């Protein structure tokens, strides 16, 4: 009995780590730049295809290709902020929504055109390995993904709290106007925020590749969970998104085990609604950190 529960919790935590990478990106962009990036899932997809092609053409392990996908997507983030998002940052929300939504549709259909709708998988030596600890199974590929995801989240936290640029970013998140009065260059801060967020999405893609198939619509699967986590963990709160993501992974897993295999999402959304009913600002307590 306890084994089944423990296994369900482990499964949930492991996939929650991936949700966290996606949702931290969304929440970072929202916190700092104050826009919702609907295309975040598509950047996960791009990260996956980068890893797939590097593995397929040059035999590079997806975990190594993290070193390619993250910088490439960081650069993409900076360029998107500088050339696209900067132009629509005004008092009106609509152009921003249309911009990121259009970006999502564009990337999705571009991927369909270039890569077709076929599923692409990468097989690594550790793809099918699992650690057996006292009757519990921990898939190696997912464990690696989880550990790297947590390490990246930790690095981000350190960056936000110890470096000048990180502090500037938090300042911009807490009060943009005051931050600008203190001499913070908003475009520079926004560029870095977009870059980091997309790099995290790319990391999620590369980490997923050893155990999940790449296809053009793959981002949609993860971005839904990311949005729930962002709202649950308070919009703009990085730690909140991390904790909420892990909670959602566990809730989904326990839901499948004890409610029904098609009810995982029902449990997740029930959790979201209950939280919003009692704590409308989310678990993070309404503060962007």
């Amino acid at each position, binding site marked *: 009995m306890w084994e089944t529960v423990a*296994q*369900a919790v482990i499964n949930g935590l492991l996939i929650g780590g991936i949700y966290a990478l996606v949702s931290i990106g969304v929440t970072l962009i929202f916190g700092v730049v104050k826009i919702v990036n609907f295309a975040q899932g598509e950047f996960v997809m791009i990260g996956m295809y980068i890893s797939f092609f590097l593995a397929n053409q040059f035999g590079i392990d997806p975990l190594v290709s993290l070193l390619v996908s993250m910088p490439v997507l960081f650069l993409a983030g900076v360029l998107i902020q500088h050339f696209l998002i900067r132009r629509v940052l005004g008092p009106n929300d609509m152009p921003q929504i249309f911009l990121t939504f259009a970006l999502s549709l564009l990337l999705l259909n571009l991927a369909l055109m270039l890569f077709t709708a076929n599923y692409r998988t990468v097989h690594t030596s550790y793809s099918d390995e699992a650690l057996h600890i006292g009757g519990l199974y921990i898939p190696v590929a997912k464990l690696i993904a989880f550990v790297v995801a947590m390490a990246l989240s930790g690095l981000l936290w350190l960056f936000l709290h110890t470096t000048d640029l990180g502090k500037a970013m938090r300042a911009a998140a807490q009060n943009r106007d005051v931050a600008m009065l203190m001499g913070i260059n908003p475009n520079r801060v926004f560029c870095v925020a977009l870059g980091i967020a997309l790099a995290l999405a790319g990391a999620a893609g590369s980490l997923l590749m050893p155990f*999940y198939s790449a296809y053009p619509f793959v981002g949609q699967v993860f971005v839904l969970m990311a949005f729930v986590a962002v709202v649950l963990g308070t919009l703009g709160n990085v730690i909140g998104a991390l904790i909420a993501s892990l909670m959602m992974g566990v809730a989904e897993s326990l839901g*499948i*085990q004890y409610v029904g*295999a*098609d009810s995982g999402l029902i449990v997740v959304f029930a959790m979201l609604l209950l939280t919003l009913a009692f704590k409308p600002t989310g678990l993070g307590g309404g503060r962007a950190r």
Partner: protein
Amino acid sequence: MKKARKDSAEKPANQVSLRRQSRREFMIKTALAAGAFGAVPLRGWAADPINIGALYPTTGSMAQIGVGCVAAAKLAVDMVNEAGGIKSLGGAKLNLIISDVQSDTTVTRTETDRLITGNKLSAIHGCYASALTLIASEVAERAKVPLITGSSSDQLNKGRTYTFTPFARASQFARAQLQMSKLVSDTPKVAVIFENTAFGTSTSNGLKELAPGEGVEIVMFEPYSAGFTDASPLINKVKSSGANALFSVSYLNDLILIVRTVKQFGLNVSINGGSGGFVIPDFYKNVGKLAEGLQGVAHWNHDVSEDAQKVNAEFKKRTGDFAFEYAGGLIAQTFMLVDALERAGSADPQKVREALSTLDVSSGYAAMAPGGKVKFGPDGKNIYGHPVGVQWQNGDLASVFPKEDARAALLKI
């Protein structure tokens, strides 16, 4: 200012259209000349070709299999024509008219209609996906053109007189799957997991209904939502159910995750993935070695007869992959049409239908089917039709069930 610009813009446009006109005239003249000197004499010595319509989705979500079907349809027609065409019609060649039904039911209706009204067709084959074939067969029935298909929906045998189904029906697949589970264990305890839309629900309900009669115990019966991020919770549940066999009614991506997760958990269950996406070359390409030993069911397999192996070798040469069930099946169907055309001695669709209804073959390419015999009953169903149980062995699909069709021993994994 504005006006001037308009004028200057109009002028070159005029010039272009003038030039086009003369070019068109030139083309028409050349075409006429070519017709006068080239095309007319041809009529004198060649028998009129026989038009066969081929309806397959080559774009859209079902394109992957549809494209393979078209390759097979072309191969079949080439085989017939190279062997001298239809002898009773003076060596008339088959002329394949391919139409893309775009994985869409509405398009299927209009395309079938267009194909029939725009061409003098003797017969049609298509569309592989039951949902599309049901529509195409409705249109063909009304136009009184025979349609022969590998689609498995039992609905195709109801109230139709121009539709012929030479292969196993959907209802037979479930029974075969249950019987296969008894090859692995004397007391099969089956966990059925299925994606919770029409496809998964209807297939799994068939399994549930037949299980008691076949003496198979179903210990878990669980719908899941397709496109999940992680199969571990589901497999954790299978593990706690104590099942020794797993039937997964799933789309390709979910199935890949399920298979990988079962292996990671070190779960000792035999997996039966059913038919469709599970028995095509792409499945092995995605899952790799983990697919070894996995079982499925198919309405056709390339090892059912020597003729089938010949066809398979040719198909492999053309496309690089082995002939999957629909590809091989529709080559057999083309030869069934040839048999009917030979006996009808006419390209008239009504006469072809008559000849198909009295078809009775047990040798040659037309008889490439599990059991090796084809004869249609009044409902258009092959009275000998049954599915074949297959297993992935060394990157290839081997027939392992039933005994008379088995070409390899079942590996118990």
